[in-house]
Structure formats: C-alpha cells, structure tokens
C-alpha cells in the first residue's frame, strides 16, 4: 500500500477558523482533560447508539508493536506538513515506542453520510463524517441528544501529544455500508512555501487519498480495512458498525494512574447509564483494557457512593420518595428530586487515591435531563457525622417546554445549566428556580433544623428559655466581671471589683510544685489601704469543700502575691490605689486539686 496523501489546509480568502481558535472553542474546561475527552466521546457514542440496544464502548491504551509502528511511520503519517512548527509530530512519531489511546464504539451509527463538507445534502442524510472530521461547531441534530460534534472533539486532539488522531469507522451512506479511515491533525497556524507560493496555513491537516481537487478523502473499503488491521485496531465488520478514534501519543499526567482515572471518570460521569437497573436500550456496556490487561469496571452499585446515587436515581425515575421541584409563577412542574442517605461505605480501591474525583463523603445532587446523562453535580452540606453520606438525583421534567429550557441553557460541553444563556422569559425562570431550589436542598438536607432556624415552629416548649436562663447557673462566676455589675456599664461609677481567679499554669518553684493563678482587679481608688486576701482551698466534687468536709486538713498557704511591682510572700497584699492583674502562687498538695478564693478587704 502506498503512503497516505496529506492535505494541509491553507487559509481561504473567505477565512477559516485557525486551529488555535478552533481549540479555544472548547471553552473553559470545567474538568480535567481526560474527563472532558471521556465525557465527549462517550456522550457521542451514546447519542450515536442505534435503536434497540445501548452501545458497547472499548477504552484501550497500548504501545504499538514494531510492525504497527512501521505502518504508522511509513504509511499513515509518512508525508509530513511543510514549514516549521511541526516538531511535536516528529517527536511523537519518530522517536521510541508509540503509545495510543483508543476509544471504540460498537452498535452505533459510525461516521456516515458524505465525506466532503461541500457535498450537496438533501437534508435527510446524517452528516456525521463531515461534522466530525471536517467541520467545527456544527450543532448535531439528535432529538434531545446529549452531544454536539465540533467543540468536544478538540479535546481529542488536545489529549494527543502531537494533536493528531486517526479514525476508523464502519457506517452507512445512503443505506450502503461504508468503511472509512483517515488521519487528522489540528496544530498551530503556520507559514509554508517560498516566494509567491508562501502562504499562511490554518494548522489543520488530513491524511487520506488525494481527491484530485487538491484535498484528501478518507481511505475506503479494502484499503481502510487493511490499514486498520495493520495498526491493530479493533476488528470491524458490517455487523459491527461504529467508530474507533486513535489518539496518538496521549498525554497522561506523569503521576496519574490511567487505569483508575478512567474507571472513576467513566463511572462518575456515566453511572446512570451503567446501573444494573438501567434499561437495555440506554445501557452503556464498557470494556477497559490497559496495556494488554483487561480491567473490570465495577457496577455503580458496587462503587460507593454511586450505590446511593443509583438508589436515588430509581426514586427520581419513579417519583418514589421523591420531592417535586415546582415553579409557582408560572406554575410548572420542573422535575423530581430524590435523595438517599446511608452509612458511608468503604470506597472502591480506585477511589481511595488522594486526587480522586469521587467525594470522600458524598453530599451531592446529580443534575440530568431525562436522557440521564449527568450535566453536573451540585455540592451540598455533608452530614456532620462523617460516618454517613447522602446522594441526590434531579431529573428535569420531560415535558417539552421544560426540558427544552434546560437543554437550551447548556453550554456546548453540556456540563452546566446556565440560565444566563436563555432570553428572559418562562424558560429562564424554570432553570433559575430549579437551580435555586436544588442548591437550598443541598445545603439543608444534612441539617434541616439548623437551616430553617429551628425554633420557629417550637410550641410552648420551655427548653430554650430554660437554657438561656441556665447560663446564669454553673458557669456564672467563671465569666468574670465583664458581665457583672462592677463594670462601667450604663454610666454607673466604677466600683472596686476583683474577677474570679483563673488557673494559669503549674511550675516547680524552689523545688515546690506550685500553681499560678491570676485575677483582674478594678479599683475605684477610694481606699488607700485596700488589701487583697487569698485563701486556697481543696476542690471536692468540682467545687469548694464545705466546712463539714474541712476536717481534711489543708494547710496550704499562698506563697507569693504580686500586682505590678507590688510583691508579697503571704496570702494578703496591700494594693492601695493600684489595679491590674493580680498573680497568686499556691503550693500544691500531692494528689488533690486546688482553687483559690480572693477577697477585697477594705482598710
């Protein structure tokens, strides 16, 4: 087989979108790149599912063997773009082993329809091939489907170290089976050629067969079968329609653990389509192969917290223990919210990693339309009790007007509901109201009392009044003069006062175990002979020993008192007009607790 022909797209006079702009179309990534790729690719596969059964998807990473590398270098990508700025391509293809990441779906429609963007269409035929391989940003016309081509596919190129993919598809055109294969690269814009031939190029390149008009078409039929087989791609027959996307030299984060990243990404984003209870026609059958090893992807029911989500999904589907989310004005049923809670189950090994996207304690509501593809999660308040978690599912109503409102609010990546995307009107209100209600529910589910103010509905219960009044018991004297009558509150003249003593620390002083207490003295300076007297006491049952118990001799005496520069070595200190912090040293008995009582003595 001869090497594939290359077409590098120059800027047209009418202007193309340059590849950089093309890549930017992806918009702000709400998720990391691998997640975006998986979401987009799987969403497309689910959309392309043929009626009857859900699609089968194979995700596979592998290192090409020697023969396959040779085919890739000498046949598929033998011809290279001219000009500069293609170093990434040779870096990936010409040095060392080549790794690929394949996303293959089966039981889908494949990339059918015409192969050329300029082919006339009758409006009946799907334009999947053109849209996927040639056009950018064309809205895909699946009735209430989840995906669009155009934006999402840029992520496929972004994941490739050389912005290059190879595609093999078994599809139909005008009812006839077709097999197609083609390479495509979306690099940076560059200049190439010399003299008057020098032109600006968009950075987009296709590898296929010369169409005789300066462009390339995909390889077809036997040639496509042969090249795909030579590259070791999954086998296809007319009975196994679908598409294989080969991402060349995928950039997997150095530290990332691809196997577990893939498991949790697929499950976290597509679990509603993978549950044991999911209907056959919606069900996604996923196979995962990492460098030759078949990896078992657990069912969501065996992958906490998705077990709870799966139960919540059941509830939302059947309105079972679910809450209707409604708009009052205009009056409309917006959808069902179902929340389930349970003991926090141990996580699957792939979700135990530090950077796992799976929450350690779920407190999330998954938002979806009836198509049951997750748009996003609303984060809520987790249970304060870490042993429990909750999971919710909201499915918007399938009433045309309502579902369209939510669908229209989605950005191209389908990863959000943005009411601002809608014109003012009922549709915008629906989305706004639902999001507000859902965020309230998420915040309050774990602690419904606290959030609604609790006491509002309380009847004649005296419990809270008793508790407020109870503040005056027990803790009373520990709160010091700040709240007492001794301060200057209300313009009352300052009175002499001494706060309750506080224990500060224990220390060894001259070989004696000594407790240090302090208290605050406020002085009205009316008594030049004012004294402070300190009496230590043994603590019994949490308080001062009663006189009846005083037969337990405690001959402890205060050994030092101080207020600023004033010092004393007994239990009394003349303070005169001074004020501030009084320090008091009490020697400790061997196995008893000690407090100290301070008095003001007027002279």
């Amino acid at each position: 087989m001869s090497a594939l022909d290359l077409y590098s797209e120059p800027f047209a006079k009418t202007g193309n979108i340059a590849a950089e702009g093309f890549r930017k179309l992806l918009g702000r990534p709400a998720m990391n790149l691998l997640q975006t790729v998986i979401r987009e690719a799987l969403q497309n596969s689910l959309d392309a599912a043929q009626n009857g059964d859900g699609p089968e998807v194979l995700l596979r990473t592998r290192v090409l063997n020697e023969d396959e590398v040779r085919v890739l270098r000498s046949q598929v990508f033998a011809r290279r773009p001219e000009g500069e700025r293609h170093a990434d391509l040779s870096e990936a293809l010409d040095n060392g082993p080549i790794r690929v990441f394949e996303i293959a779906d089966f039981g889908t429609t494949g990339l059918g329809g015409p192969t050329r963007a300029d082919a006339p269409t009758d409006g009946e035929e799907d334009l999947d091939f053109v849209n996927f391989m040639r056009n950018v940003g064309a809205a895909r016309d699946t009735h209430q489907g989840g995906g669009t081509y155009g934006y999402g596919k840029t992520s496929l190129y972004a994941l490739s170290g050389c912005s290059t993919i190879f595609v093999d598809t078994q599809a139909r055109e005008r009812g006839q089976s077709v097999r197609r294969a083609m390479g495509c690269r979306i690099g940076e814009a560059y200049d190439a050629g010399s003299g008057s031939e020098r032109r600006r190029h968009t950075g987009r390149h296709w590898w296929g067969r010369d169409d005789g008009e300066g462009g390339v078409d995909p390889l077809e039929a036997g040639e496509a079968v042969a090249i795909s087989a030579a590259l070791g791609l999954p086998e296809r027959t007319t009975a196994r329609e679908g598409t294989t996307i080969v991402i060349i030299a995928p950039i997997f984060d150095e530290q990332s653990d691809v196997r577990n990243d893939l498991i949790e990404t697929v499950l976290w984003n597509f679990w509603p389509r993978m549950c044991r209870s999911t209907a056959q026609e919606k069900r996604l059958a996923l196979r995962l192969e990492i460098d030759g090893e078949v990896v078992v992807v657990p069912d969501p029911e065996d992958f906490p917290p998705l077990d709870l989500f799966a139960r919540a999904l059941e509830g939302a589907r059947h309105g079972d223990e679910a809450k209707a989310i409604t708009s009052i004005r205009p009056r409309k049923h917006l959808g069902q919210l179902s929340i389930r809670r349970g003991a926090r189950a141990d996580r699957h090994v792939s979700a135990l990693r530090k950077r796992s996207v799976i929450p350690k304690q779920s407190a999330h509501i998954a938002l979806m339309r009836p198509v049951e593809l997750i748009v996003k999660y609303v984060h809520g308040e987790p249970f304060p009790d870490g042993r429990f978690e909750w999971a919710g599912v909201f499915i918007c109503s399938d009433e045309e007007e309502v579902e369209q409102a939510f669908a229209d609010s989605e950005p191209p990546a389908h990863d959000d509901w943005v009411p601002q995307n809608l014109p003012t009107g009922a549709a915008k209100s629906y989305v706004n109201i639902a999001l507000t209600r859902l965020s309230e529910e998420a915040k309050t589910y774990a602690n419904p009392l606290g959030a609604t103010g609790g006491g509002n509905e309380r009847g004649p219960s005296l419990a809270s009044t008793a508790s407020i009044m109870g503040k005056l018991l027990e803790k009373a004297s520990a709160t010091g003069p700040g709240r007492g009558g001794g301060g200057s509150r209300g313009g009352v003249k300052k009175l002499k006062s001494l706060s309750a003593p506080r224990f500060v620390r224990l220390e060894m002083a001259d070989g004696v175990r000594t407790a240090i207490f302090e208290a605050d003295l406020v002085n009205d300076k009316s008594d030049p002979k004012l004294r402070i007297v300190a009496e230590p006491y043994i603590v019994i049952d949490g308080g001062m020993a009663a006189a009846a118990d005083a037969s337990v001799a405690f001959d402890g005496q205060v050994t030092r008192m101080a207020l600023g520069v004033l010092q004393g070595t007994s239990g009394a200190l003349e303070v005169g007009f001074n004020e501030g912090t009084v320090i008091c040293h009490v020697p400790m008995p061997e196995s008893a607790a000690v407090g100290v009582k301070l008095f003001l003595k007027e002279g």
Partner: protein
Amino acid sequence: MSRVDLLPRLKTIGVSHLLQDSNGAPPEPERVLEIIGENSPFVWFAASGGTAGNDLPSEFARGLRDIASRCGYPGENSQKARADFDREAAIWLGSHPSLQSGELLRDDVWAFLTTALLPKIVEWRYPERNHERYAGGVRNTFQRLWMRGVTLDLGEGHADRWVLVRELSEDAMVQIFERAAISSDARLSRAIARSWVDIAGLIGRGRMEDVMRRATIFIRVRNQVIDLAHLDDDDLAAEIAHAFNASIGSETGN
C-alpha cells in the same frame, strides 16, 4: 425490654400545697384527692414513651405499706422498727423489676409516690415531718431507700445479695448517697460499702462514723484528680482501703 411504666409526677409547688393545707401534718386522702385529683395543674405524665395508667403506683403503695406493717407501722415506732423498715424497703425497691427505669430517677415521681400515696408512712418514719422527706430528692423517704437498693444490689447470682444494704449503718448510707459524686457510680459506691463492712469488722461499728466521714472526703478529693471509675476492681479496692487507713490514721493522730 418491656415498655416503661410511666408514673405520675407531682410538681414541687404541689408538694407545698399538700403540706401547707394540712398545717404540716400529712394530708388526709380526701385532701389529696381534692388537690391533685383529675385535671390537677400539679400532676402530669410524660407525654409519650411508655404506658401510663398502669398498676405500678398502687402496687408500690401496697408493697411499702405491707413492709411498714410488718415492721410495726402504725403502732410501734422504735428506732429498730424504722431501721427494719429502711432495710426491707430498700431491698424490695431495689429488686422490683418495674422500678428500674429512668422514671425512678425523677424527683417529681418520688414526690408523687410519697406525698400523695404514702404520707402516713412518712409521718411514721419521720415524725419531725421535714419537708425534704416528702419532696423528691436524695432525702425523700423512699427515694433514698430505692437508691440504696438499686446501687448496693450485688446481683441475683451473689451468695449474699443484700449484705451491703443490711450491714451499712444509716450514717454510712448518708455519706454515700447524699454525695452524687459517689452514688452516681454504682461500682464505687459498692467498693466503699464493702470496705466499710470490712473495717467495721476490725475496729467496731462505734468508731465508724468519723472514720467513714473522713474516708469519703479523701476519696472525693482523690476522685477529683484521678478517675476512680477507671481503676480495675483490685486497684479500686486498694485505693478505698488506703483512704480508710488514712482516715483511721488521722483519727489516732488526734
């Protein structure tokens, strides 16, 4: 676990009414009915959580009246008769299966049982008619006996199940049961009671009042800084014995 028998609760102010209106004497049954009859603002039940309207109050009254009668009530009122009553009533209360629930920790329940049902027995047991013998609390005529019974019970399997209830003097009981820091911990209470019996056997009951009073103070002081409940049985017994020895030591030192 069977349902809790809910018991009537008599408010503090109801106790005062019953006693005031009868000028200090125990109220006559007709008076009691008049004041705390139906729809009385002074008597209430828990709103839920068990069975109200059970036979327990009447069984309680009958049981204690029988014991009192055996001990000489109403005619004989010697110190021995009262001591016999305290002992037998404590054992009966401590072993009654329906008297183990949280209801019995409530003062207002005891206030009802005492003031409304058995005021005559209170007068017989405490002729001085102190208010605290009627109102709920650690000095309530029957509540104090119940506390002794449930706390000092050595268990059905024990060869001499009620030895502590029988042996301890009134003063020793008061030292234990009027101090919540001790009586709230049943194991600690029993350990002290056992020690009391041992020491009384050695030095004679006559000296025990002072020795016990000081020993319980030592124990409470110690319990403030170390958690006696955390010690195993042997260490706890040693700790208690140490307190008694220290108490005896300071007695001879005086």
